[in-house]
């Protein structure tokens, strides 16, 4: 007797990546053996003390269970259920989370299914292997200045700046930007996520030669011999310039702490003030590339800084339950550019976002590097031309179809 599980609507192993948000699964009897009756099966984590852990749902919304009992028709018809990563128990290596399917009657193992609870983590706490996979993917994306990374560098410059800054669209635009980058990294190594730099805490493991580099006397970074970031090239010049104005081994950046940021207010218009502090102050805690908009994205730390900005928004959304796109507490401008009460184009809920919309010419920038928004093997949201609203319910709390397929280690999913 043998069972088969499909995750994210596909039997392809490339789909076996989950986060905290429930994803649809199906199980069927692929080989019924000699039985003529429906078969009771029990799904659970193969090793509850090791690797990424999974919770099961018979339906959503519903309670998260450590094991799930199902009855499978003998004719091989699939039975639907849902799984999610168990909050606090992410994977550290690819496919280290294993669902074991047992015959509920005999306890015989009918199948095992390996997957990864793939979660964005605090960069300061990554294992050496997680760190090195991330660095390798990042360096390959840059490919000595000749790779796809150059699009990301070119998007975040002066011309594109009003699309991304100075208004309510700051947070959704950067959510899309870093997700685009993360999907490119995952195309190179699906076990990689974008780690975040928690800038209100000391991050001494991050500012090392083996990770994000250590500046020399004039701020040009030095890397360990085995760190592929030593081959980083932007604008045809090797190297990264970053001179911290704080002591990276004993201090955080010059920013408000997380609790202060989350306490800015329960309405988006209040929370959006974080564009200045902590976001702006995190950038200007350094000299070098990061400290100015046109050069900031030349430094790979930019993306980890923005992962933390995004994490703070995600945590604020979760804490205040701000996923309803019809509420001004969730997002300030609910219409589209030009409608009554709207703001600059690109910063209203229904506006599409540059550059993924590929619209050029005033009031949009003169060019749109990088093409449409990429799909991923696990999900086809937000689609090739994302709008601001597509970035809001990123976990699919209110609308499962809007799930974007990422999560943070300290922001749970809650119905």
């Amino acid at each position, binding site marked *: 007797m043998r069972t088969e599980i499909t995750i994210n609507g596909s039997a392809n192993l490339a789909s076996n990546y989950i986060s905290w948000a429930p994803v649809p699964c199906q199980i069927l009897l692929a080989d019924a053996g000699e039985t003529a009756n429906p078969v009771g099966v029990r799904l659970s984590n193969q090793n509850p003390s090791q690797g990424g852990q999974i919770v099961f749902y018979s339906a959503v919304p519903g309670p998260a269970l450590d094991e799930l009992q199902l009855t499978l028709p003998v004719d091989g018809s699939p039975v639907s259920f849902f799984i999610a990563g168990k909050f606090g128990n992410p994977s550290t290596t690819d496919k280290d989370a294993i669902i074991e399917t047992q015959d509920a009657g005999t306890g015989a193992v009918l199948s095992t299914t390996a997957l990864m609870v793939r979660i964005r983590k605090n960069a300061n706490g990554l294992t050496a292997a997680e760190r090195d996979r991330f660095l390798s993917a990042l360096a390959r994306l840059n490919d000595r200045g000749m790779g796809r990374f150059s699009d990301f560098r070119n998007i975040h410059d002066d011309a594109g700046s009003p699309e991304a800054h100075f208004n309510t669209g700051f947070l959704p635009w950067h959510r899309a930007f870093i997700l685009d980058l993360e999907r490119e990294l995952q195309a190179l190594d699906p076990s990689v996520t974008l780690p975040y730099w928690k800038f209100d805490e000391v991050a001494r493991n991050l500012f090392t030669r083996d990770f994000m580099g250590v500046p020399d006397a004039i701020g040009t970074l030095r890397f360990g011999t085995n760190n592929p970031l030593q081959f980083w090239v932007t604008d045809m010049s090797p190297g990264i310039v970053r001179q911290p104005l704080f002591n990276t081994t004993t201090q955080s950046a010059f920013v408000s702490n997380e609790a*202060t940021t989350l*306490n800015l207010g329960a309405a988006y218009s209040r929370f959006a003030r974080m564009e*200045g502090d902590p976001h*702006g102050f995190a950038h200007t805690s350094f000299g070098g590339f990061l400290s100015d908009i046109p050069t900031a994205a030349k430094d790979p730390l930019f993306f980890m800084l923005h992962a933390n900005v995004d994490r703070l928004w995600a945590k604020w959304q979760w804490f205040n339950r701000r996923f309803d796109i019809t509420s001004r507490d969730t997002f300030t401008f609910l219409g589209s550019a030009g409608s009554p009460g709207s703001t600059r184009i690109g910063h209203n809920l229904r506006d599409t976002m540059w550059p993924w919309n590929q619209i050029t010419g005033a009031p949009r920038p003169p060019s749109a590097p990088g093409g449409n928004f990429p799909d991923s093997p696990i999900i086809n949201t937000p689609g090739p031309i994302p709008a601001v609203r597509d970035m809001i319910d990123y976990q699919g709390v209110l609308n499962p179809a809007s799930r974007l397929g990422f999560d943070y280690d300290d922001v749970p999913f809650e119905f």
Partner: protein
Amino acid sequence: MDASEYRKHVTEELQRVPAQQAGNRDFLDKSKSVSERRTALRSPAAPMGEDDIAAWVDIIRDKEEEPELRASALQAMSTDVGHSHELIDMALALLSDASEPIEVRRSALRVLQVLSFSSSIFVSKRPEYLATLRSIVDDKDTQLRQQAIEILAQEKDEYVQRRLIEGLEHRSKALVGPAKAIQLLGYDVHAEHYPMLRQMVSHPPSRAAKREAVRLLAADASSKDLLSEIFRDKQEHPDIRNLSGIALQSLAPSEFEEQAKKIVIDDQEDDKLRSTCVNALTHFANPATLSNDAVFNEHVERLRQSSTSKQLRQASAGYMSKYSK
């Protein structure tokens, strides 16, 4: 911890943040000590009412107040500064006024640069901001001067570029050291800079300046032979050779591969440089070529097993895991 328990935990954490309004009152209370008032500055991004803003601005402008408090107050109300033409003008005036305490001026620069990331009003003030920065590139405070020069260089400001080049040609006119000047010119390298950079590589004022010059020459196709020569030169410092290799890899990948392989198999070569070469080949070389180069791969395997350098053994192991058949 499940989500509901975690929610309780986060709620308790957030409730521990002191109330902003009480903090504001304490900060404005001049009968309290500087330390108490500084501690009261809790929530820089929290919005203020008009009365609050006026009271804070009075403190920022009050030259009798402790400079440290004025500086902290300015940073604490940075978001509100970004919402007002008048307050941005105030910050610009504080920055340019050499009679103001340095703490206040540095804080003004900090806030203005933060606004460049977050304030729509600031966009229209940009020309004034850059003009103010130009006015302080000769300031007696090193930190302020260097920050202003760097921001202008990032903004591809012609005035500061001219001053940096003047400083490289006539040391008495230098705004910053030669290595830093070259690094800053790197934000906007022009073709006419390359002869000067090549000269800097041939007759460097310091190793750091040579490093920076080599870095920038990676964008100059006509410097390929020079970079290649440095990369091969065993008399050159390994640090400079390393960077020349990286620059060459960007400019002429196949030439880099060929030379890197020669360096890797040469036991007389510097192990750190060999490690870098192995890593570069592992990550970026043409896989089809390397997979079929049995002789070279045997060399790397030997290094993996028996090199006395841990770095080289590690780099070779990474290479072999990718290319061994």
